[in-house]
């Protein structure tokens, strides 16, 4: 079954980073991605631009509404995601526990509603 990890972190933690800091950051996530690959469970991941670049759009009610910013203002924001393919929630939780974002923020685990295909 496919599971998506939504990674919520505090953007203040990643403010004022030097290129060296980013390299170190990528190395830690790279190790995690490498482990997901070797375990054969990796499907997809992305690291998102900061929340202040978000645009929220809705045509609910018939008219287009565009909002400059995220749909909800929270201290911890969605910063990226992983999609993995594992048998069940036990396995998804085991991998979420190892995700670097879980140690400093929160990882929301959501099973796919479209099955694993």
């Amino acid at each position: 079954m496919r599971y998506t990890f939504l990674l919520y972190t505090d953007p203040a933690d990643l403010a004022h980073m030097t290129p060296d800091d980013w390299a170190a950051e990528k190395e830690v996530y790279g190790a995690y991605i490498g482990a997901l690959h070797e375990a054969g469970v990796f499907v997809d991941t992305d690291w998102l631009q900061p929340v202040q670049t978000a645009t929220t759009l809705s045509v609910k009610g018939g008219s287009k509404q565009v909002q400059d910013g995220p749909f909800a203002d929270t201290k911890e924001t969605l910063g990226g995601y992983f999609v993995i393919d594992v048998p069940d929630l036990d396995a998804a939780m085991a991998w979420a526990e190892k995700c670097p974002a879980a140690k400093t923020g929160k990882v929301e685990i959501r099973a796919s509603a479209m099955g694993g295909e």
Partner: protein
Amino acid sequence: MTQAARAAEMAARTSYGRLLAFLSARTHDIALAEDALSTAFARALTHWPAKGVPDNPDAWLLSVARNHLTDHQRRQTRFPTQSEIPDMPDTDADDSTFPDERLALLMVCAHPAIAADLHTPLMLQTVLGIDAKTIARLFMVSPAVLAKRLVRAKAKIRDAGIPFQIPDTDQLPFRSTAIAEAIYAVHAHDWLDPSDGMGEEALYLADLLAQLLPDDPEIKGLAALIALSHARAQARVQNRSLVPTPQQDVTLWDDRLIAYGNRQLTLAHSLGQWGRFQIEAAIEAVHMTRKDSGQTDWTALNKLYHALLQLAPTAGAMVAQAVVTARLHGAQAGLEALDRVEAQTGSGFQPLWAARADFALELADLKLENCCFDKAISLTTDLAVLRFLRQKRDNLPADP
């Protein structure tokens, strides 16, 4: 690394930890002390090769660091202009002129007002001088976040007035336990990756703590546990795959560390108070006797796990005892024991399924084997364990 280079590194490390403890205890400002000390070490790198190493290198370093701190304090009006750091003559040949205050520093790092998950990184950074990025890489956490949290923790230590002192006897056991837990975390993290050197660091800290708290049997037990476990570091992973203790090549075990561990365990035992770390060390010691006797004493292990479960009923220890039960009473008894474990841990505990797969293999229950190996593999996030389980599963006959 050669023996001499390692010795030099250890000496430098000991100097670093002692100097930082000494400076921090007087300024209450770890970050400032780190700054001052790195300035001193940087200056040593340019001065010493040209002018020769001073008679008392620590005093030389302390003197440079002290000047750096005095300059800093002059710029900060809210600090007294009078330095609290006593000067030391750098011609003094006796290098034991300043006290070892690393125990007070460890107490600060493991203070209950500091988040428990920062105890270990703080110790690694202050006592051993390991930088935040390296620590973050080892523990697979965001380096930026860890660095920020360490800065905040040091500011709290300074601003909230966390004392640099050994607590009273009624508080001491709690604090020394917190330090021991933090050192144990280094060891527990290391055990599958002998290449990262963290086993050495855990051993250094445990040995240091055993010297600083000589009357605490559990600290000796911890030092024994880490040494005995680290003695198997080279045998534990072969071809990037886990090798379980009973199958390890005993010629790869480190005799020096085994001797050290057994010595610490005997000393701990002579203090006459059992504890979790001593029992875990004794379990390791029983496994190590296979090097001489050629066999494993499962009856002794059964007694020790029984005692361990009384003191620290962890899921890992429960599974380990089920494995011992299977050795003594057969795989069926092991499976039954695991069912009782699962009632407590739930179905997501990886070692439970790895052990169950093993027992199914012994009982030649193919259907159970396949399902247990698949479940164990799905829960495995450690690559050495993953490779081991896959090899084992792939050697099974096909499901009929």
